């Protein structure tokens, strides 16, 4: 109680120190991982000089290239589909007043957020196994469906948030100017929803890239994605090549997340 002059109601002794320590601890492992991707030697903890050899090794590794392309393709397709489906669902549930069954629709849309991935994973494993026996189809369709369902709630949230902030007066003005409901939607509502739709797509894309457990249980032979490939490799002796792959992967996520932040921040203005 001695610090009369500098007394601040929001200051709690020690909290600043714990907070800064937490931030450091949060980033330290990632920073070290990135640093050692540039290591000359084989070690991931003793620095032996700068080199790009592990990046060269990663790019030359055919399997890494294959799984990366598959991951990006899957994320693009699943996030794209999820965004379209989520946009339609947002239009059906937002600014329309309450209706019977709305709670059930919300529960279904949010369900992938609540259920642990491992439970969804084995549930899909069982389901997919029986479809495979019946139809003989073993393509990427299962992974696309599983990832799309998982991405829908993540795409839904920013799109809905965007539509909720739109002023209905804009559409009324369009109607006053003799625009048909379709024209008003096409030329007013939809363009204004674009930032939300873009944000929803990016969120879905990142989520699909991040999904490992569901993929692990749904994939057929030869359908490894980058995360399931890494999961398999982590049990073996690993070289800084894994650090290089992880660093590139991190960079991609960072770019998307930054873009997402910029898009959703300009929304408020």
């Amino acid at each position, binding site marked *: 109680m001695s610090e009369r002059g500098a007394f601040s*109601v929001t200051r709690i002794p020690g909290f600043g120190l714990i907070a800064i320590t937490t931030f450091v601890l949060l980033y330290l492992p990632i920073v070290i991982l990135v640093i050692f991707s540039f290591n000359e030697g084989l070690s991931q903890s003793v620095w032996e000089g700068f080199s790009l050899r592990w990046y060269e090794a990663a790019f030359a590794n055919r399997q890494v290239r294959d799984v990366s392309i598959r991951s990006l393709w899957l994320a693009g397709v699943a996030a794209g589909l999820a965004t379209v489906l989520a946009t339609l669902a947002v239009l059906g549930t937002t600014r329309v007043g309450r209706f019977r069954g709305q709670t059930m*629709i919300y529960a*279904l849309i949010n369900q992938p957020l609540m259920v642990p991935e491992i439970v*969804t*994973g*084995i549930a899909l494993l069982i389901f997919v196994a029986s479809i495979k026996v019946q139809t003989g189809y073993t393509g990427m369709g299962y992974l696309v469906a599983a990832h799309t369902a998982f991405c829908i709630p993540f795409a839904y949230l920013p799109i809905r948030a965007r539509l909720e902030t739109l002023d209905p007066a804009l559409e009324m003005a369009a109607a006053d100017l003799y625009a048909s409901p379709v024209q008003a939607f096409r030329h007013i509502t939809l363009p204004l929803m674009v930032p939300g739709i873009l944000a929803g797509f990016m969120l879905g894309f990142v989520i699909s890239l991040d999904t490992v*457990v569901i993929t692990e249980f749904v994939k057929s032979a030869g359908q490894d994605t980058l995360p399931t490939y890494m999961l398999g490799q982590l049990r073996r002796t690993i070289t800084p090549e894994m650090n290089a792959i992880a660093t590139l992967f991190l960079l991609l996520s960072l770019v998307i997340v930054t873009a997402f932040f910029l898009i959703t921040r300009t929304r408020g203005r």
Partner: protein
Amino acid sequence: MGGNGWKWLLCAPALVVLVLAASGPLVIVAIYSFLSPGNMGGVTWEFSTEAWFRVFFRRDIFEPDLVTWNTANLAIFWRSVWLSIQTTVICAVLGFPTAWFIATRSPRSRPFWLFLITIPFWTNLLIRTFAIQEMIRNNGTINTVLLWSGLIEQPLQMLFTDFAILLGMAYVFLPLMVLPLYAAMDKMNLSLIEAGYDLYGSRGAVLWHIILPLVKPGFIAGSILVFIPAIGAYVTPRVLGGGQSLMLGNLIALQFGQGRNWPLGSALAMLMLIVVVVALVIYLRTVGRSDGERRV
């Protein structure tokens, strides 16, 4: 304004995908937990409660009437719950000061600190777990530094222990605690804290009697957001925990791999789902109650 048919029509495509690839399969799991295991995985369509029985009990091989608790399964179940509770507590202890720190920055710099918390949240969970593995392995960063400084002579065995799982889970789930805590603090009325000090409350008294009750909804939300993925963890214990330190998620996966007992795996998955639902119900009830308090 006509019927509600068009609303359903717009939602239908999303709902079809969700029912087919998310909710529907859960029903199949519930059914499978009451069937008999097939020879090479899969099931035979005979009703049986054996899988649920085996979740909790085991029969003696020589005397089938001799029934004892299935201590192996129960130990893993208990370990999962206990590790998840510990993870939640660690996240709360570190997350509260961190969220407070962010909430008390100037409005201009707050988005930056929030962004710093959000980045790890959106970066790949597997990569973050890999980063922790790099830190704590026997020839990893921590051991290298400790050996070099002469503090230890032998590397510390941290990887493949419960400690490793705990560290990994607290690391990956921390942002899930900080964000709802921050949201609660952001809405807080600072004049209540000022009033506390004006009435000669000590820092401890103000923290305990004013700040903590105000951010309680954030604590509850954060605890649920951390506890649910922790109890469902599969990747973190698989990468950091090694064979001896299983959690419920790994036990479930085992029944669909080497274990080849799909009904048992389904019953265990249902058990996990029940724990999650119970946690959610507790959450909704406490949130409902604290909403009531605020209205009074």
